[in-house]
């Protein structure tokens, strides 16, 4: 019915103004020279050239490294948890998943802030260690603290994603595998794991993307000197006032993210195809 189709018109205007134009503005700023006004811009590639300074390249590589480690840790911890939850009694599943997902909704700053008083030199852990005459252990302002903070914040996404794919799996397939003589381990390796791969992949996107772009966690747990790509962007806009350079970095980051999403989607497709037999048969 055309009548209802008209309901999208206001949002199309809204969407162009507030979603499309801001994106174009970032591109515009990234390719123009200094001056915080749209009216007086001049075309340039300098902002991108500047990024290839070793200092900035190091920041980018560090961000990717930290995000990759975080993602890896989340898979290693998240998969067993999701697997266990998916295999307990159904009434418990709902409750456990609720408990896993509640932290997702709590303010990220609050969750990260909570770790400061635990990890700091005179924090809860060190107080405890001191009472048994160990330490103090330096944890705040290290890679460890930053990665811990990221795992803490993003692990629920990984568990949720893997759990979803495990829970919707047809139990008959597992039983068929047992029926055909596979033992528990073989069934897990050959059936459950491949079939749950789409969940792992979407978990990877859900963890890697925010991990590579966050600036709160490094700021809180890494300290003022700890630079990841998100902090770099924040600095350009809030402290330095270099909007053009900041836009260029954002654009590069958006590119990296789109590329990694494209790649995970492709892997996802290949895996799904393989899981379904693909064209091998």
């Amino acid at each position, binding site marked *: 019915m055309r009548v209802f*189709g008209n309901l999208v018109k*206001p949002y199309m205007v*809204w969407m162009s103004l507030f979603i499309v134009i*801001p994106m174009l503005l970032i591109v515009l700023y990234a390719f123009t020279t200094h001056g915080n006004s749209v009216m007086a811009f001049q075309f340039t590639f300098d902002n991108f050239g500047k990024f290839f300074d070793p200092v900035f390249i190091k920041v980018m590589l560090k961000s990717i490294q930290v995000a990759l480690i975080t993602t890896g840790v989340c898979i290693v911890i998240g998969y067993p948890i999701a697997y*266990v939850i998916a295999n307990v009694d159904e009434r418990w599943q709902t409750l456990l998943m609720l408990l896993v997902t509640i932290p997702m*909704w*709590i303010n990220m700053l609050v969750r990260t802030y909570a770790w400061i008083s635990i990890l700091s030199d005179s924090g809860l852990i060190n107080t405890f260690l001191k009472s048994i005459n160990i330490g103090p252990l330096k944890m705040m302002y290290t890679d460890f603290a930053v990665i811990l903070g990221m795992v*803490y914040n993003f692990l629920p996404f990984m568990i949720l994603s893997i759990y979803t794919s495990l829970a919707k799996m047809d139990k008959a397939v597992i039983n068929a595998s047992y029926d055909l003589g596979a033992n528990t381990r073989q069934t897990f390796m050959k059936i459950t794991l491949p079939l749950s791969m789409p969940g792992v992949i979407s978990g990877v996107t859900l963890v890697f993307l925010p991990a590579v772009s966050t600036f709160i966690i490094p700021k809180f747990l890494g300290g003022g000197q700890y630079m990841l790509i*998100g902090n770099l962007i924040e600095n350009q806009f*809030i402290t330095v006032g270099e909007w053009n350079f900041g836009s260029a970095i954002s654009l590069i980051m958006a590119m990296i993210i789109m590329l990694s999403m494209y790649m995970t989607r492709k892997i996802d497709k290949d895996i799904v195809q393989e899981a379904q037999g693909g064209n091998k048969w």
Partner: protein
Amino acid sequence: MVGSKNRKLTRFFLIAGVLLFFYAPIASLMVFSFNDSRSLTSWAGFSTQWYTALFANREMMSAIYVTLLVALLSTFISTVVGTLTAIGISKSRKIIRELIINVNNFPILNPEIVTAIGLMLLFSSLSIEKGLITMLVAHIIFSTPYVILTVLPKLRGLDPDIAEAAMDLGATPAQALWKVIIPLIMPGVISGALLAFTMSFDDFVISYFVSGNGVKNISILVYTMSKRINPTINALSTILVVIITFVLLIVNLLPFLKKKELRGAE
């Protein structure tokens, strides 16, 4: 069955471990909000002094006010706009549908910081002074796509002729919306609204970039204050955690209660 017992124990410790990991920091944060001293590590007795301090702090009270005002207004507006748009999308031609859904996905897939600086650049290009209004507009912008995304599957589940059926029986398009479509997608609308509310309530990155002139929401305040140890932040955080947990419990318990009601009716 020693093996099975061991497996049960492993399972138990895995789950208990991860839940401890999730909740211990939050619990310690909440516990020390009631501490009688400034310390966040050693317990000096129960006190509500930090809550008193919180409620006496005008900046904090104003942040709470801003957060609630923006969350309520942006939830209302984005729910109405998002629901109507979703209905429109479900009745549009494929090409329009895909265009909107794809553009709509941008703010969802993009890192928040990119959306934030995009909006910041937009407001400054239009010479709009950053403040409460820009924060509100920004919140509506990032919430609406989520509302649309939550409502659309509910619409897909409807009989494709349901609106036509209402009009066939004499309902005007507006009546068909109110009496048939909206009641049927209400669960989706409600979860969309709750999603919008929690997202706005918790938002930091976007608010941080698009607000100014002393307008701060709770997250911005926590961000600026957290550099020093300050138990009022714990008190504030405790309130946030309680509110969000409460909202989440309602959302998750509602379907259960409804089911019971239905069963009772039969």
